[in-house]
């Protein structure tokens, strides 16, 4: 995503619908999934395609406001998702500064890196659990469901931009 993509959906209303559906999804249990660690982080999954696609040429201030909104609706601490989104945004900026992500495999790699950065920030700022009490596979568990959800959002953004 080197140059500005002018084919992007220039509609905040569509984004608002996606955002509201995401709030709804984040509070619904997935069928046949009893392990709460497998519940995906929908907001990290949403913000990564939003930043990568540069939806409405999204800037860092809007990313921050989105983070604060997420914190107000579903967060534990005000500022937790804001800081996560900011770090994802800046990581994407820095990565694009030094590397080209053109081929599908490179783009998938970028998604994966940004997801892991998001999980690390959320994990280290969380107050609902202590790191030493959680098993070492917590990141793996989180990835299992969040990666597919992230690519679903990616597909939605691609469809919207067509």
């Amino acid at each position: 995503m080197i140059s500005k993509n002018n084919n992007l959906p220039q509609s905040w209303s569509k984004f608002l619908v996606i955002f509201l559906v995401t709030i709804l999804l984040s509070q619904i249990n997935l069928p046949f999934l009893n392990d709460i660690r497998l519940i995906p982080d929908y907001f990290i999954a949403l913000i990564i395609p939003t930043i990568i696609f540069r939806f409405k040429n999204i800037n860092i201030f809007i990313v921050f406001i989105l983070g604060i909104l997420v914190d107000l609706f579903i967060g534990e601490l005000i500022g937790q998702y804001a800081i996560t989104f900011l770090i994802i945004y800046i990581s994407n900026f820095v990565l694009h500064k030094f590397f080209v992500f053109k081929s599908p495999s490179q783009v998938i790699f970028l998604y994966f890196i940004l997801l892991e950065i998001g999980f690390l920030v959320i994990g280290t700022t969380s107050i609902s659990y202590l790191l030493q009490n959680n098993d070492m596979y917590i990141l793996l568990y989180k990835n299992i469901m969040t990666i597919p959800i992230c690519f679903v959002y990616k597909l939605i953004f691609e469809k919207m931009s067509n």
Partner: protein
Amino acid sequence: MAKETGSKKLKLFNTQESPILPFFLLLLISISLMSYDHRYQINYDIKQYISALNTPIKFIINTPSTIIQNFKIYLSDQEGLHKKIQSQQNEINLLLLDAQKLQSLENENANLRKILQIKEIVKKEVIIAEIVLPNQINGIPQIVINKGAKDNIKLGSAVMNNQGLIGQVTQVNSDSSKITPITSNQFAVSAISNKGSINGIISGTGNPVLEIGQLPAYESLAIGDYFLTSGLGGIYPRGIKIGKVTKIIPTYNTQFNRIIITPFSSPLSFSEVMLIRNNK
């Protein structure tokens, strides 16, 4: 992958304006907000104000379960209901018998307290509520009940069910309240063992078990013993079951053991809970 050239003026692949300065500014704001919220809990206050915005979402989440429950009631046959009423009637009779015994014990206790000039036990008010969805938000478990400020629910009330202690009310909205479960790492309660000889502070771990971090090794505690609320502090009445000892782990300091306790209560969605409020 690009190779960097010597030119300092060369902008590499990203043609956006540099967001580095705003990033550090916003990062500072975020950290300040987090610190302030962690210290003063402003999140709870703000969430109370915006809880009305969440009401449609809660309604949508709970609607399928409500429909299924109503449908089950609609389909249940007369004979089945009759049997259920009969069994519940028998249960009520047995409980009434117990209540009579308790009443006489309570009177006896009150008389003894008068003789010994011990302060009267604070009268507690019990409010029945139901656990509703969502039972998790973004992967973080939580317990929400269908009663709030409108039903006179107060912050800090103890919550229990027929199995034992569940937690404490930590957020009150107009028509719902949020409970911090005993397993939360922000929870602690003063407890006494069923034999009455061991006192300790039981705390949540963030995992499905509770613990007493350091209990003197000379205390005669065995696996299978259980703990009850001690009543110290005045929030939780004395005698509510908390959990059963499942592990006794020696620590590096040989004078102390770490006690792992499995809670008795496992609150399920759409089950009833009781809120205990001090009538001071």
